[in-house]
């Protein structure tokens, strides 16, 4: 296995990766986007620092609205501002937005086709000690089923920066899923990022399985792939940062090359990225798939790594899933 040249992957990724919270990339990206386009406004429900929206709020106080602990209103007000010509970004914890305000997002934002960008921070199990109430592990499912919604899950803070700027330039309602904890930096400024274009992270002459991951799980997938390669088992790793619209072309190409898939996400196994891929593949090119994610359970308090291990998304789980799917492929 080789890291893909074109992806310009961070050279310290396997030795001593730099760490940065994905939400910080969002905060910096929003500030940058705000500087480029005066139509961009930002609204927050009393979590400005936590979601890193404070960078925008400090730079452009006249374009920032603090709505207080009121996520339903957060979505509706943003829709109204968009109707009057603005490009609103709203932020809170994913559990509350798009969790609590799902109907307002569906009706006032998506049904109205308003270009509101929903940044859900503290998504996934890696929120850690806050426990199950604050671990959004259903958010991909509830956002991707809404017509018109784009769903983006950046793998690191650099990608979050690019995703934020990119989605500000689209007319679609967008859900940006952001993790709380410091996450290894995988990509670099030179790495390509395009909404709806999956990144193939590795090169291999004869890959047996494709591992498709999103968010912080891309790092685990790369580590697992390297471990497997050391034992002579070649795989391909895809950073599938855009869950909707799905990059069907790239995915189909790599699935045809390998004939077996492992998906990894910090989300319920039901309804998330893996389900989105399965919906597509069973109709076009059915192959064995192993899904890694939370298995119809709620989270709990713990350290992020501890939780990722407990709920079955660790490096060893990916390695095992690759062996399982390979066995099924060879039938």
């Amino acid at each position: 296995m080789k890291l893909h040249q074109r992806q310009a992957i961070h050279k310290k990724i396997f030795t001593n990766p730099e760490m940065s919270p994905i939400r910080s990339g969002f905060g910096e990206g929003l500030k940058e986007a705000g500087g480029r386009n005066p139509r961009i406004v930002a609204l927050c429900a009393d979590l400005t620092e936590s979601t890193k929206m404070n960078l925008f709020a400090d730079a452009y106080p006249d374009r920032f609205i603090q709505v207080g602990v009121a996520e339903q209103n957060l979505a509706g007000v943003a829709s109204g501002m968009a109707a009057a010509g603005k490009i609103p970004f709203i932020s809170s914890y994913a559990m509350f937005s798009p969790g609590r305000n799902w109907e307002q997002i569906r009706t006032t934002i998506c049904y109205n086709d308003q270009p509101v960008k929903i940044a859900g921070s503290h998504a996934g199990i890696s929120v850690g000690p806050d426990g199950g109430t604050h671990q959004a592990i259903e958010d991909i499912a509830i956002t991707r089923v809404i017509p018109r919604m784009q769903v983006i899950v950046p793998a690191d803070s650099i990608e979050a920066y690019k995703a934020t700027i990119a989605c500000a330039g689209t007319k679609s309602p967008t859900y940006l899923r952001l993790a709380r904890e410091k996450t290894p930096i995988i990509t670099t400024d030179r790495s390509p990022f395009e909404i709806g274009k999956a990144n193939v992270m590795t090169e291999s002459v004869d890959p047996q399985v494709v591992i498709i991951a999103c968010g912080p799980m891309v790092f685990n997938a790369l580590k697992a792939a390297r471990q497997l390669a050391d034992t002579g088992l070649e795989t391909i790793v895809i950073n599938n940062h855009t869950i909707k619209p799905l990059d069907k072309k790239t995915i189909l190409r790599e699935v045809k090359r390998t004939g077996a898939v492992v998906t990894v996400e910090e989300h319920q196994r039901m309804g998330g990225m893996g389900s989105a891929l399965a919906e597509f593949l069973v109709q076009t090119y059915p192959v064995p798939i192993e899904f890694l994610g939370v298995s119809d359970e709620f989270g709990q308090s713990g350290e992020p790594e501890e939780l990722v291990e407990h709920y079955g998304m660790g490096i060893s789980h990916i390695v095992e899933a690759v062996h399982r799917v390979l066995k099924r492929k060879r039938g």
Partner: protein
Amino acid sequence: MRHLHDDEIKKLEERAQEVRELTIEALIHAGSGHTAGPLGMADIFTYLYFHALKHHPHQPNWPERDRLVLSNGHICPVLYATMALAGYANPADYQKRLRKFGSPYQGHPHREWLPGIETSSGPLGSGLSQATGMALALRMDTGSAVDQFVYCLMSDAELQAGSTWEAAMLAGKERLHNLIGVVDRNNIQIEGYTEDIMPLEPLRDKWEAWNWHVIEIDGHNFEAIHAAIGEAQAVFEKPTVIIAHTIPGKGLQMAERRFGWHGNPPGKGPEDVYTKAEQAKKMLKDIRTLGGTIRSEHE
């Protein structure tokens, strides 16, 4: 603001009558939909579209227009009727296509289906948030001198949804003087009278507590509506809400004040006065003659 002349009032009253008639005709064709709310709000819709709003029906996206947000989307039969008579659509087309497949007149309004509709609505309690967003954005662009008003029409029962009060809090905090709420205080909802289902009173105090200016009026009196809108536009440091006391089903004796007519069209309403088979014909006659006896008093 100057008073309305008598002939202006008479014209508005006649317009409102046309709005009611078209509303009933469309509901009969549709065979489903809400009756009481639309009739109760016909006077206010007429006043807004034919006197208050800055708008160009033939240029619905005119950037300098006022905005009208209908939060309780289920009373859209009166919105469509008024808009059609104001020039946004063809009244004859509307009369036949309310709630039909492929029609601009969706069962609950959708902004993409009928240009001129500012926002899609139906799920209750979300309109005030969107109206607040619009008022904020317009003020952001123009500054405190903004004279583009955002009117948000709400039902009384939808105030039972907490999100309305989230929006009220924000509009109060932001001192959005270009936001004018109108609450249709008709006292009914699907399952009964509001004060039995979930009391709203003291309603004035609730709005005042969120730093709104409150005006209470008879929602069928054009002079009162006119004065209230004028006052709301003049108040500078606060958003204003007009609590409009209305009679649900206004103009049709068989439907007036009866919650059974909240969600039913003519032909499917309660049979306490007329059978379902008689309702449509009787309603059309009543609405066209101002209820027979009422006409002689009127004249």
